[in-house]
């Protein structure tokens, strides 16, 4: 393993962007970083709120209209290499909210996250479990390690 991938595996900064779900996934993710029980830091995963510092973007929620642009801008602000993890049913396929107008295209839900930014790992669940989020971050790691 080269020094590059070794150092990338040893310090992963994740950033959480919450685009309008029900709070459930969001709290579970914060919980998995802040709670001593899950303690993401022992797996070298650090929480940051600055896109310039982040490697992995964790997105929850079905991306409402007002959140679309901020999400895209934050994604653009992250320097390469980066990975995106969509966490929770809403981020994966719009959840219960996507089908709001039936066949008429929705003006409120712009999601799922796939439509806005490329997604590298998907974590299912409503709400996601902290264990699953950690394994999602781990599954996105090879992408970071092998990048230039």
């Amino acid at each position, binding site marked *: 393993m080269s020094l590059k991938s070794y150092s990338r595996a040893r310090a992963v900064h994740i950033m959480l962007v919450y685009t309008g779900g029900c709070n459930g996934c969001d709290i579970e993710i914060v919980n998995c970083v802040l709670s001593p029980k899950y303690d993401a830091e022992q797996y070298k995963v650090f929480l940051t709120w600055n896109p310039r510092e982040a490697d992995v973007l964790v997105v929850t929620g079905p991306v409402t209209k007002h959140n679309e642009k*901020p999400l895209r801008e934050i994604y653009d602000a992250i320097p390469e290499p980066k990975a995106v993890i969509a966490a929770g049913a809403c981020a994966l396929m719009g959840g219960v909210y996507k089908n709001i107008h039936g066949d008429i295209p929705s003006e409120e839900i712009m999601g799922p996250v796939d439509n806005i930014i490329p997604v590298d790992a998907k974590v299912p669940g409503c709400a996601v479990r902290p264990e699953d989020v950690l394994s999602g971050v781990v599954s996105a790691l090879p992408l970071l390690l092998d990048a230039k």
Partner: protein
Amino acid sequence: MTAVNSLIAVIGTLLVALIVSVWLPGIERKFVHARIQQRVGPPISSAGIMAPLKFFFKQTINPNSPMPKLYNALPLISLLSVIFILLFLMPQLYALAALTSIIAIVGLLKIEEVIYMFMGSLSKSIMSLKMPFPDIVKGAKHPNTTRTFMEELSSLRAFRLIAFGSFPLYIALFIPVALSKSIYLSGIVNYQQIHGPILFTMAGVLGAIVFFIGYMILLNEYPFVILKTKADVIEGPLMEYAAKYRAYVYITRGFLMFVLASLFTTLFLGIPPNLFSWNILVTIAVALIFPILMAIMSAFSPIFTNKQFYPVVAGVSIIGILALVVSFL
């Protein structure tokens, strides 16, 4: 021969400083914060070594700043000023006279603080005003205000820190001067070799306490973290640093911890950092003890806003002045 020896000593000391300083953030995080918070915590290499290394391998981006080149140069200037402090502390360079006085060190520490102000006013992050959101719409309150970036707030706070937040540190630096009646480091070190370390006098003990508080304020550690608190300015002046420039920021912080500790050993114990003497171990020990003490303090304290910050600084400064008075008596 002596010139070569000195050169080796200087470069060797710098390398030792670098090697010790990269472990300090990890030790703080793993052995103190994580222990107090009853969790496993990150490996000690993560925060100090691997994170900067990782940032070196990231893509260099153009920061959102009116002067991107100057903004990116600032961490290097800051790192250089810290390295110069360490150089001037070394006994091999005491021949430089004026540069190895306490005044030069105060000046270099001032650069460290002033740079935060520049960083704050040059950073225009996506996370505050640039965030696309329709604020000024029909019915919005106060549509005619000047809209500012969060970083300008931290620039303002950095200015306050320069104005009086750094009082304790500078008062503490002048206690050895008052005792040894010399502003030259060589004079202070000589005085202590004759009269014993200043730390073990009344004024020295008070001075050490004041120095420690000043150390925490200069390093912006909790509770004196108002410059870059997560509650409002997120990371403040450092928001736009990415890739290798962020790595410099990380390294500078660890280096500053080491340099301030060796400043303390020089001024209060009479032991300048010198690779060719076993006393370098004392410097390293102090460099380890200070961050650990600081981490214990920071794990148990909330952020101080101005309401708590002013009285604390005023109180500590009064202790410092008391120590100065004691040293004159």
